[in-house]
């Protein structure tokens, strides 16, 4: 097995760019020096064969088969197979630069905006190939909503932030319908009570936790099927985090939720299943309880006990 480079680079996610070894176009010498131990770990993983645990699930909605992602020469994700059902919260965990955010971004084709990124393999959403020729990535992103690491409300009013999606997709026929969508979205995001008297004030004036809930409201306003969350609480304080976690619990009744997180407690609290990524490989997938009480793979065990990452 000849893999030029094992360390993952996620150029879109600066949180994951934690060290020099992650530079895309670094000089060759330090790269090789760093890769030596990683190569040993890769051998260790491949010795044990494919992903440990259960990648399949009942009633799968998103099916990723043998997905590989390359950033230029860098092989960021290697042969990942994973099924996600519509009624679950699945958490992607792993050390920085392991490819979890990259995998998340494959699910709504946000990697398209990176010139050097290349995705191979097969991902289907409700049976439809999302990398198929006849699929419009813009329409896909309306079906697969995304909440980002840093709250990123537009510099517009709270109302316009939520109304943005419905407006561009023509979901409301008149002002009253739009009002309804905005109110119900804010309600479901648990924000309505706090902002209903100041919908015309700028969304950037809210607190961090409120901004993130505004972004969630904005996402559910376009009525997606799946919500991707890329470390949605890493910029928030514990109280705001608890509110978002409660919200995820409620939303999971209607949406499939895929969350990337660095907090294992968070993964344990919110998710039904957990997928552990390491150096671009999907090491282990299983029920949350099982992963945290009885991990099968040594790397998973090392990670959750704090020996890696």
């Amino acid at each position: 097995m000849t893999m030029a480079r094992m360390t993952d680079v996620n150029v879109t996610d600066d949180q994951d760019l934690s060290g020099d070894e992650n530079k895309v176009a670094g000089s060759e010498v330090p790269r090789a020096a760093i890769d030596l131990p990683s190569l040993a770990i890769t051998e260790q993983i491949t010795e044990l064969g494919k992903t440990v645990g259960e990648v399949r699930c009942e009633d799968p909605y998103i099916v990723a088969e043998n997905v590989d992602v390359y950033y230029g020469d860098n092989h960021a994700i290697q042969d990942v197979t994973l099924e996600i059902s519509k009624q679950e919260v699945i958490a992607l965990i792993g050390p920085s630069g392991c490819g979890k955010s990259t995998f998340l971004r494959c699910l709504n084709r946000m990697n398209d905006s990176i010139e050097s990124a290349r995705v191979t393999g097969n991902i289907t959403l409700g049976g439809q190939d999302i990398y198929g020729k006849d699929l419009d990535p813009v329409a896909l992103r309306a079906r697969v909503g995304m909440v980002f690491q840093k709250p990123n409300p537009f510099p517009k009013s709270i109302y316009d932030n939520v109304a943005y999606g419905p407006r561009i997709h023509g979901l409301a026929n008149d002002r009253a319908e739009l009002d309804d969508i905005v109110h119900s979205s804010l309600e479901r995001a648990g924000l309505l009570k706090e902002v209903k008297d100041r919908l015309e004030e700028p969304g950037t004036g809210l607190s961090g936790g409120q901004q993130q809930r505004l972004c969630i409201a904005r996402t559910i306003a376009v009525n997606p099927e799946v919500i991707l969350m890329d470390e949605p609480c890493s910029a928030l304080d514990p109280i705001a985090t608890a509110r978002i976690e409660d919200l995820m619990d409620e939303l999971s009744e209607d949406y499939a939720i895929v969350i990337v997180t660095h907090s294992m407690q968070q993964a344990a609290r919110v998710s039904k299943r957990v997928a552990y990524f390491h150096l671009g490989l999907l090491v282990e997938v299983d029920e949350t309880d099982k992963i945290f009480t009885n991990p099968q793979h040594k790397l998973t065990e090392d990670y959750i006990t704090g020996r890696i990452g």
Partner: protein
Amino acid sequence: MQNTTLILILGAMAVAAFFIGRGRAVAVVGGPQHGTDLHSLPGYYGYFTAIWCLLPALAVMAIWAVLEPRVIVALIISGLSEAQRSLSPGELNLLVNNIQNLAAGDVVSGDLDVALSEASSRLSGYVVMSSRLLAVVSLVLAGLGGTIALRRIQPDFRARNRVEKIILVVLIAASSIAVFTTVGIVLSVLFEAIRFFQEVSLTEFLFGLNWSPQTAIRADQVGSSGSFGAVPLFTGTLLITGIAMLVAVPVGLMTAIYLAEYSSNRIRGIAKPLLEILAGIPTVVYGFFAALTVAPWVRRMGESFGFEVASESALAAGLVMGIMIIPLVSSLADDAINAVPSAMRDGALGLGSTRSETMTKVILPAALPGIVGGILLAVSRAIGETMIVVMAAGLAANLTANPFAAVTTVTVQIVTLLVGDQEFDSAKTLAAFALGLMLFVVTLILNVIGLNVVRKYREQYD
């Protein structure tokens, strides 16, 4: 002794002072092996000594250079006869000039007389004496300063802090040069403009509709008495600026949008430097491009559509000026667009917007304050632009909004009023200062607004 020699000697003394100071610092603590006993590195003691050696001497030389001519002239005048001293200031000035010319060996106006040549030889004497005195004083000061500095060198003397303090003073002096120059220019323009407004009323200048600055120099001369209504100049300036912005804003903005959001890195890498080249073309080159290429073309095109076009038209000048300003608008707009955090883009794309929806609905509104600020800076650039309009827009102060007619601008009139020999006691010449003041005020206001808008915008995302 010549000043060059003197400065060279002072330089040599400073170098020597550096080494002596450094050596002494080392010696004070008892050799290089005790170097850590010193408060600062030995070199700082050297610099300290050198600065004390050099600065006082240079300061004296600077003051000398300012005062010497005045003192010498005063001495010469006091040595003249009573009759000569009671001459009118103008004639006295002429006489002193003659004496100075004679001493320098130049041509002298009028007849030579004994008193004159005597005075000139006295002048030469004073000059020689002055330069000797200067040499002695500055060299003594240099030696004295160096010695005092040397005596202060002790192990706990904070040479590093002292040297840094002196460097701070030098930095402040350097930055105040620009400030004082600006203040000086503004004041000189202001005072000349006030002189102008004593002859021509402010209301006539600001609201008069007729600009014809030719005034009769002598009482019997046939000619107009001059008319200084600046309105045609300002409308001309506005017309050309307006045309320029009509060209520069859409083209520059679209360029910026394309380069910032759509182009690949390769195209961006080629197009950006090319735009910068466009910005680097001297305006005089744009000027003859406007006058020789664009103006005839505008005339031909206009005539083919049945318009009457002057060979120097506002349209030609405005078009070329617009092209000149494109890089400014596009680079400022590009900065504004790039300053919008990529999280905004991701957020909009993640909601299923197309690129152009992202651009028009999220990025442009977010970047708008920066873009507006950039456009205001471009307007003030257009108003102040001179070379293109001098060559392509003409000199006729027509009060018209017709872009095919020849118009003139404030800057063009300033140029024509001040080119060549001018008498500085007539309203015609002073009008240039009044126009300059107006122009300064207008561009200053635009710049302040533009910079404030840009700054406010920057704070938004920090």
